[in-house]
Each structure stands twice: as C-alpha cells, then as structure tokens.
C-alpha cells in the first residue's frame, strides 16, 4: 500500500495548498472591497451630516450665541447615534479654540494639525482610525460663512456597527471556506481513489497474476479516459502474450518431440551398431594375440584400436543421449570425496604410468558430497583422463583439490599441460570438440567433457574451465552440493 499512500498524499497536499491559496485570497479581496465600501459610505455620511449641521447653525455662529450653539450640537449628536464627538473650533488670535463640543474633556483635539490644514485650505479632511476595539472616522471641514472661513467642524463617527458586521461576515466566510476546503479534499480523495488509485491497484494485482503465468487475467475498467485506454491496451497486451506463449508452447512441444525422436534415433542407431561391432571386439584381440607374422599383427592391432574407439564412441554417444533425457534417475548419496577420487586414480594407475604423469589427490579428509556414486566416478574419470591426455610426458603433474564454500564443494582438476586459448576455452564443452586438432581421433572421442558437463548439471552444479593461455596449463572446476546442500 506504500505507493497508494504516497500518490494520494502528494496530490492531496498539492490540492489543499492551491485551494487554500485561492479561497483565502478571494476572502481577503472581498473583505478589502467591503472595507473600502464602508469607508466611502461613512465619508458620504459625514459630509452630508456636516452640510446639514452647517446649514442649521450658521446663524448662531454668526451671532456668536454660544449657548444656542451648544444646544444645537448636543441635539444633533443625539439624533445621530454614530456620532461620538462633535465640536466647532473657532479661531481666537491665530489659534483654533474649541468653543463647543459634545465631549467636554477634549479641548485640544488629537487632530489639531489637520484642523489647521482644513482651516487654511478650506477643504474637508477625513482621518480613518482603526485599533483593536474601535473603528472611527474623523472628519474636519471648514465653517463656511458666505465665502469666508470662520473655523472648523470636527466630527468623529463610529464605524463599529459596520466593522462588527464585517467581522462576523469574515468569520462566516472563513468557516464556509474551511468547510468547502474539507469537502473539496474529501471529494478529491474520493475521485482520486476511484479513478486513479483503484485502477493502479487493479493493474498491480493483474501484473502480479500475469507474472505468475496466468495470462487469462483481464482488467475490468470501463472508464472512458486515459486509464480506460491503458486498461484496454493492457488487456490487448495480455491477449497477445497469451497467443505468443501458446505459439511458443506449440513449438516447444514440437521441439521436444523432435528431440525425443532424435534420442530414440541415437539409441536405436547405437543399438544397431553394437551387434555388428561384436565380432570385431570379440574376435580381433584373439586373432591379434595368435598372429605370428609381425606385419600382419601390426595391422590387426590398428584394427583392434579402431574397433575399440568405435565402441567408445557409441557408448559415449548413448551416455550423452541418456543424460539428456528427463527420466534419468540419479541415486544421490553422501560420498567421501577423497575416497571416491582415490578409487578413480587406482583404476587408472597403469594409464598414468604409461604417460609418466604424477596425479596428486590433495583433497582433505571428511569432505562429503551429495552425488550419484557411479556418475561421480565417471565425471572424475573423464576430467582426470582429459588432463592426463593434454599434459606432456616430461614433468607432467595433475593435482586434484577441493574447497568448501557455503553449501557447495568446488573441486578443481589442475594440470601443467598445453593450456588453452580463449577461443578453445569457449568450446571445450561442445560435443565432438577437440582442443588439440592434431590429436589423433583414435585417442579421444571429444565427448568426455560434454558428458562431464551433463553429469554436473544433472546434479544441480556448475562446471567451468580456466587457463592462463597456451602452454600454461588448464584447470577444470565443478561444484557439487555438500552434505548440507539440498539436491532439488
């Protein structure tokens, strides 16, 4: 579920981020516009209130009737609940002095310098003020008496009602935004799961099933989008795979049939060759033995050698065919490697003496391998006689050693003989291949190493060869399971 989690998380985070930016910037713009609208409305209100005030109190100012002026202002303030403070500032010896105010404490107004500006320029000045608790708008406007400016009005309006309403609206907006954001995230996750994550899981499961070899798996996604197209392509691919696998299986069966026909043919041929060879093998040695004429005896020896070579060829070809067939059974048992090697070497003692080659068994005691006794003997015999054949008679030395690696025993058969080139190394296990072309056919069938390879592979092991080059000797290695390794 790892991939599922990560795709959803990545996309969700992206969507949340973008939606939050959009929603909150929209809310911010909305509130900004509302604020501007409110302030405009209050400017309008302030200026119309001042005009009304101006019209009603001009006369009292002109007459300088302070008592009546006070009464007017107080009444005016009471009529408009938004007015926090209202005062009329009139000049007295180059200074503006508050003459009348709703707020008796405020003689020197906070907005003194703006009073001066408004007075000197004869224009309205608006000063909005916001703090944590209050939102106010202060307006300073000139007292205009038939074209002459006499002083200023200072009117402070509370914008609390509007701003409180705006705050409430803002809270609602944020709440609605958050809720819609959550709804968006959940619907997005739902859509994501339905249209992407679930198909991906379906693809993953189908791939697994197909990987296990069941090509009847079909992905059922009917959506008309890219995923649907992908599913169609995937299903087509599966059908194509199935068709080609069926074709390959058919070819395979034909091949297997041909192979078994070939093996049958080889078996039959070998069998048919054995009967006519019987007189040669049976009688030639006797005739040769009894022949007195040395010339004729030499010819007969040649015939005997060739007959024996033919017999070897037939036996080894049949052995190869047998090793290739699947129903050959090996009798696997625990064998002492050193002992088995010694048995093979004892049997070949005369052959080594004839070739004047020393064969050393350096394998430690108590190395146990899991192998078929007869086949292991055949394998060792093939490798050792091969090494002896390709080692010169002077100072010829063949050493057999083994090392334990995990659950494997790696056996090496090393000679100091003619060595091999890279080209020869790559063909040495091919059937009928002889590394030394000059070697007379009668001496080697070219099948011994192929048989060795088959035997090792049938034991579940590996065989390989290494040579530093021409004239520098050759080492054959093969691996077998030791007593702890399991055969198949």
């Amino acid at each position, binding site marked *: 579920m790892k991939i599922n989690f990560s795709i959803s998380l990545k996309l969700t985070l992206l969507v949340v981020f973008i939606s939050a930016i959009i929603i909150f910037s929209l809310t911010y713009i909305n509130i900004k516009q509302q604020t501007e609208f409110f302030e405009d409305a209050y400017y309008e209100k302030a200026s119309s209130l001042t005009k009304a005030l101006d019209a009603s109190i001009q006369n009292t100012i002109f007459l300088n009737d302070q008592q009546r002026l006070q009464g007017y202002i107080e009444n005016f303030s009471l009529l408009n609940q938004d007015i926090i403070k209202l005062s009329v500032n009139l000049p007295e010896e180059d200074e503006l002095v508050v003459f009348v105010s709703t707020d008796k404490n405020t003689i020197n107004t906070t907005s003194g310098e703006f009073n001066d500006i408004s007075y000197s320029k004869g224009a309205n000045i608006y000063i909005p003020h916001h703090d944590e608790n209050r939102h106010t708008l202060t307006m300073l406007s000139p007292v205009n008496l038939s074209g002459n400016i006499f002083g200023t009005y200072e009117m402070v309006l509370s914008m609390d009602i509007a701003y409180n309403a705006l705050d409430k609206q803002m809270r609602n907006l944020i709440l609605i935004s958050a809720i819609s954001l959550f709804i968006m995230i959940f619907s997005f996750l739902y859509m994501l799961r339905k249209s992407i994550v679930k198909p991906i899981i379906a693809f993953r499961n189908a791939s697994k099933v197909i990987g296990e070899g069941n090509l009847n798996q079909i992905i059922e996604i009917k959506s008309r989008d890219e995923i649907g197209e992908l599913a169609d392509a995937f299903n087509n691919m599966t059908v194509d795979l199935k068709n080609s696998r069926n074709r390959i299986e058919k070819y395979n069966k034909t091949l297997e049939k041909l192979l078994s026909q070939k093996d049958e043919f080889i078996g039959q041929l070998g069998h048919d060759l054995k009967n006519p060879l019987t007189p040669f093998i*049976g009688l030639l040695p*006797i005739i040769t033995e009894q022949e007195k004429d040395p010339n004729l005896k030499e010819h007969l020896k040649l015939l005997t050698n060739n007959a024996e070579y033919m017999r070897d060829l037939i036996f080894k070809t*049949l052995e190869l065919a047998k090793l290739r067939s699947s129903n050959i059974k090996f009798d696997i048992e625990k064998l002492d490697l050193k002992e088995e090697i010694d048995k093979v070497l004892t049997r070949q003692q005369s052959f080594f003496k004839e070739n004047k080659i020393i064969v050393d068994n350096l394998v430690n005691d108590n190395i146990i391998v899991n192998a078929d006794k007869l086949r292991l003997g055949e394998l060792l015999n093939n490798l050792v006689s091969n090494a002896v054949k390709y080692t010169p008679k002077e100072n010829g030395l063949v050493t057999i050693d083994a090392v334990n690696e995990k659950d494997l025993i790696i056996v090496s058969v090393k000679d100091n003989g003619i060595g091999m080139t890279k080209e020869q190394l790559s063909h040495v296990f091919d059937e009928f291949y002889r590394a030394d072309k000059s070697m007379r056919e009668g001496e080697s069938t070219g099948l011994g190493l192929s048989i060795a390879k088959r035997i090792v592979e049938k034991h579940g092991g590996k065989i390989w060869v290494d040579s530093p080059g021409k004239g520098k000797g050759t080492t054959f290695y093969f691996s077998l399971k030791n007593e702890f390794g399991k055969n198949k």
Partner: protein
Amino acid sequence: MVKLGGMHIKKIMIVDDLPEVTYTVKYGLEKLNPDYCVTRVESGEKCLELLNKNELPDLILLDIMMPDMNGWELAKMLKKNIQWRKIPIVFLTATEDETSKITGKLIGDDFVEKPFDVPTLMEKIEQILVKKSK
C-alpha cells in the same frame, strides 16, 4: 558336464538371430579353450526344439532382442520347465537401460553388454559354471 578323455567338455548354447554374434561366440570360446563346445541357435523356437530333443547345454547365452520370440519370453518358458530351469542363463543385450539390467539379473544369472570381448565373456561363464557345480 560330460567327461571325455579326462577333459570337461563345456556345452554352451548361444541363441541369437544374428549369425555374426553366434559365430563370434563359437569361434572365440572354442579358440580360447578347446574344452568349449558351442552350439549356434538362431531363434527361440529352434532352442526349444533342441531342448526337447534332450540336448541340454551347461549354459545358455541368450540375446534379448529377437524377432518372433524374444529373450525374456524364452527365459520365462525355460524357467517353467523342471528340467530346464537348472540351466544357467546369461543375457546378451545391446540395450543398456537399467530395467533390462535388473530384469536380466532377476531372471537370468548374469548380463553381458554387446559388444563384448570374448575373454571377459568366458570369465563370466567360468564363474557361473563353478558356482553351479558346487
């Protein structure tokens, strides 16, 4: 075994449809040891005919793959007869599968794979004859 002038004549019967094999056996064995007297028989039917004439050999060399009656069938018939069942049988075969080797040793006394050299064959025959005479 028939005593003839102090010598033990060993009567061997070779049953094989291939004349080159019967010839090899006859020539080889008689050449190596003049005590041997080998009768060449080319089929199972002929073998039964001769045995019915009461010409019982000391040992029968029997090929397995023969037309009409094969070696297994003949061996089974021989083993059913009280008189004939004592005659040791050595199978000759060109097939080298495990089952024929095992069956060969079960029904017969030994098993020789073609192509064989005559001294080896004689060695096996001698061993069996010595064992039987005890």
